[in-house]
């Protein structure tokens, strides 16, 4: 084979490259919203919150039903956020007030929510095709469909990021940051550390359900199994993001999480282009997280040695 043939064999036409890139951006941006939520639990609160695996499909099911009921698309996003936040509060109360271990509280709520999601949607798969979604809004009409989707996603992600950044600079936000860092300080400030954790879980799951809502808008259906692995994906995104933030000082944690989400999705696309199939997706996501974690711990060992 000569060079040109080789190129043709391994590489792809510009159109295909654009197609892959827009796909990566689209998925990456969508999951970056969920990752911003998991950034709060995993990074700030140091709380492995399994609830997200069900608050993501919660956002999906609520949105599917609301779209079918012709509720304005934007409103479905807000309602999903609120529903997610409520679920976060429940996990928080189980953990804080009843003293159940963090991981278990999340698993309990996740399991219960599985049934509730089925109840909300009425079945395990609910299509909402032919309903107007946030991606059909009359903005950016000069762009083609996929570019418009990405631009709308960019706007949503930017709003989420700016709001979260603002929140983390407020008095309440700083209290949240201290509770994961040094609970004793929060108590010394005469604040109930349990309540602060509950607030954190609420915001986090709000973001995740919000992401689930966007997902339904994009895909046009609710699917009960779509949430499985949300935590694994989001934690991977957050860890990649934190590595970026450590190396490039001038970007904020939240921006890094968003970039991490896109990079992570690019890795998945590469894995898929190597001949792995969509049904291998969970295997790929789990393996990727394992690789990331092992690489991190090797690096840490090298530093100590």
């Amino acid at each position, binding site marked *: 084979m000569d060079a040109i043939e080789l190129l043709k064999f391994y590489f792809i036409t510009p159109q295909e490259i654009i197609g892959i890139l827009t796909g990566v951006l689209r998925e990456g941006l969508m999951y970056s919203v969920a990752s911003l939520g998991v950034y709060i639990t995993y990074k700030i609160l140091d709380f492995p919150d399994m609830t997200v695996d069900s608050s993501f499909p919660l956002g999906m099911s609520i949105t599917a039903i609301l779209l079918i009921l012709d509720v304005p698309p934007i409103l479905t996003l807000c309602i999903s956020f609120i529903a997610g936040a409520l679920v976060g509060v429940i996990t928080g109360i189980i953990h804080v007030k009843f003293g159940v271990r963090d991981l278990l509280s999340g698993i309990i709520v996740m399991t219960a929510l599985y049934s509730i999601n089925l109840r909300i949607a009425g079945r395990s798969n609910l299509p909402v095709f032919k309903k107007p979604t946030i991606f059909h809004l009359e903005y950016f009409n000069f762009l083609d469909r996929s570019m418009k989707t990405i631009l709308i996603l960019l706007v949503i992600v930017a709003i989420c990021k700016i709001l979260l950044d603002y*929140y983390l*600079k*407020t*008095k*309440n*936000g*700083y*209290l949240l*940051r*201290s509770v994961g*860092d*040094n609970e*004793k*300080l*929060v*108590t*010394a*400030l*005469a*604040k*109930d*550390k349990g309540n602060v954790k509950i607030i954190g879980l609420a915001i986090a799951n709000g973001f995740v359900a919000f992401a689930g809502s966007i997902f339904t808008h994009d895909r046009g259906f609710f699917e009960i199994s779509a949430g499985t692995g949300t935590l694994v994906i989001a934690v991977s995104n957050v860890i990649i993001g934190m590595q970026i933030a450590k190396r490039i000082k001038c970007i904020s944690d939240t921006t890094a999480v968003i970039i991490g989400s896109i990079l992570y999705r690019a890795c998945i696309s590469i894995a898929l282009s190597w001949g792995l199939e969509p049904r291998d997706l969970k295997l790929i996501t789990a393996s990727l997280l394992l690789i990331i974690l092992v690489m991190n711990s090797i690096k840490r060992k090298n530093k100590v040695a």
Partner: protein
Amino acid sequence: MIELRNVSKYYNTGSVTETCVFNKFNLNIDKNEFVSVVGSNGSGKTTMLNIICGSIKVDRGDVFLDNKNITNVPEYKRMVKIGRVFQNPAFGTCPSLNIIENMALAENKNKSFDLKPLVDKNRVEKYKTMLKSLNLGLEDKCDINVGALSGGQRQAIALLMSTMIDIKFLILDEHTAALDPKTADVIMELTDKIVKEKNLTAIMVTHNLRYAVEYGNRLLMMHDGQIVIDVKNEEKKNLKVEDVLDKFTTISIECGN
């Protein structure tokens, strides 16, 4: 005032390692007393402070603060009136925030933690003046994360933070132990100044007998969950380091150490 009435405290109740730290322990501290507490390791000093602050529950007995029975009041609610510096320098500050952010948090204590920005640029100068009083050059390290500071530097900041707003009680657990001798002297002077200026009722645990004798208007020595020396006011003024040391040695010998 702070009062412990018939307080009993056991660790690991029911197991072979059961330890009785206090058995019907009584203590009465009046308003504006500045009590220095000395005593051997494991004599129960930290446990006593934890009981007062509510970090641990008593098995029996009652705790009073300002004439109110607070035995069942949770720790965070007691902290409205109490400022505290821990034996462990990591406990007093938030390591991933910088000095200014930490101080801004402390200054907001007992106010609402709402959705307004925390750090007020106009206050930064005041924080820096406060940091200058520590003589540690921290006023030039304001935007360094506290986690990157030494234990002693953190402890000094923790003292400032715990007394930033108007509190009534100050609880100090070996707050100069992590400091070099010169810095310890500076911090001790500052502590004394703060206690006097703010009219605080203070308890200071220390292993430094000189500080215990020199500062404060009451001295307690604890041993095995009991108070073995309790001197106040005039009597305390005439007390010398040697007297305390003698008593300390006698007790240690009696106990076979």
